[in-house]
């Protein structure tokens, strides 16, 4: 309880809210790392997942890779990359990309695979090209599941991005590592509270986006609620 009170006192101290290692700057770094990681991972994983879902080929292989990738400890990976790439953001970004990929891949291919074959077959039969089937039918219909993948990847990354501070001077993790080293537990818990708060806010935002996506895939639900009102 003392630590928690001390943490809030630490958070309330205005001197911690300014400068290069102040809370706002660390928060921005943390967000930047998270968004860069999720973007890179999405650019790689989503097209692959969508392709697998569309062609129904390779889901076994990817399932195995996803399972294996999930079991890799991110800290170990970070240490490995850090040894190879040195101090800086490259190693943590790379390790976090590996962390984010499985959820994104699984979301994309599971989402596309759930689109009923009759629907894609009919779309093909009336003259949509394969790309048009993907972009106009499969992606809109599976948008909630794909965004669900982005949501869980983001949450994993935003909480694990504290590890970036392990070998780089970046992110909210700095408070945890510095606090640990200097036995400044107020700072440590304060940093942890910041990470948790950030994760919760992102979760809320992404849940909202997922709800919006459901209106794209199931628009009739929207019109029925409108009628009821």
């Amino acid at each position, binding site marked *: 309880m003392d630590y928690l009170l001390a943490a809030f006192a630490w958070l309330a101290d205005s001197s911690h809210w300014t400068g290069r290692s102040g809370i706002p700057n660390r928060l921005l770094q943390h967000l930047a790392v998270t968004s860069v990681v999720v973007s890179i991972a999405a650019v790689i994983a989503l097209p692959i997942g969508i392709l697998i879902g569309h062609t129904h080929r390779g889901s076994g292989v990817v399932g195995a890779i996803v399972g294996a990738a999930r079991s890799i400890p991110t800290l170990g990976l970070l240490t490995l990359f850090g040894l190879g790439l040195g101090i800086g953001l490259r190693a943590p970004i790379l390790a976090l990309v590996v962390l984010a990929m499985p959820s994104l891949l699984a979301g994309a291919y599971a989402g596309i695979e759930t689109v009923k074959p009759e629907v894609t077959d009919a779309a093909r*039969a009336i003259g949509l090209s394969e790309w048009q089937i993907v972009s106009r039918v499969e992606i809109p219909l599976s948008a909630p599941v794909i965004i669900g993948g982005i949501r869980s990847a983001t949450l994993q990354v935003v909480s694990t991005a504290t590890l970036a501070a392990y070998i780089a001077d970046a992110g909210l993790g700095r408070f945890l590592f510095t606090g640990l080293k200097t036995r400044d537990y107020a700072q440590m818990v304060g940093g942890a509270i910041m990470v948790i708060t950030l994760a919760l806010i992102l979760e809320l935002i992404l849940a909202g986006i997922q709800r919006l996506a459901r209106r794209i895939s199931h628009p009739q639900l929207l019109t029925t609620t409108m009628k009821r009102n």
Partner: protein
Amino acid sequence: MIEFQRVSKTYPGGFEAVREFSLVIPDRSIFVLVGSSGSGKTTLLRMVNRMIEPTSGRVLIDDEDVRDQDPVQLRRSIGYVLQDGGLMPHRNVLDNVVAVPILNGVSRLVAHGSAKKLLEQVGLTPDLGHRYPAQLSGGQRQRVGVARALAANPTILLMDEPFGAVDPIVRRELQDELKALQAELGKTIVFVTHDVDEAVRLADYMAVLAEHAIIAQVGSPQSILAQPADDFVRDFVGTDSQRVLTVRQVGGRDLAIDATGRPVGVLS
């Protein structure tokens, strides 16, 4: 004119759906392919718009091999209606109907204008245009499917058991409307069904298919009912049993009585 020239299709795994099938389908008629499930009738239909490629043989439309055409362009030039409409669940009725014209580059405004006319043509009120497929009845979805198939004004309409999922009364209505629509628009319609009654009701010509899409008999419904080529056809169209009517005099009038003993009409 659609022409099948010695078309065969063996699926990977060895199932021989179609064996050496040859047939000419004349323009501006309703041609029904009727056969039990697994007779290869859907396979034949889907060869016309290249949804399925034959293992051997050729399919010609107006003397042009469909294989020489780009499949996507070919499919856009042919109307396709399938069971339960095959509509896109996330698009409203209007957007479903205009899907093909939009793909062909027609502006949304123009397309929506003609879509409303199409909806009326298939017996739907234009205010249904903003509903989604899940908010329609099976019969309504089917009508939207027909409107969509007509939207790009194709000369050929392929219909794959389109009325299989609706109840018998609505099915009858849809069949009558299809006949009226065909009389008005003069499309070449290839219609696949396993329902002999439906075939007889709709067809200008029909082909009764046995296993491997072997043609047991082809001709007008009249000629097939009058002179079944063999036992298979006789059995399939049911001229032995349920389709036989007897005449009974009741109160000075001749009643036609069906196999179950119910009166189905009066002879004049």
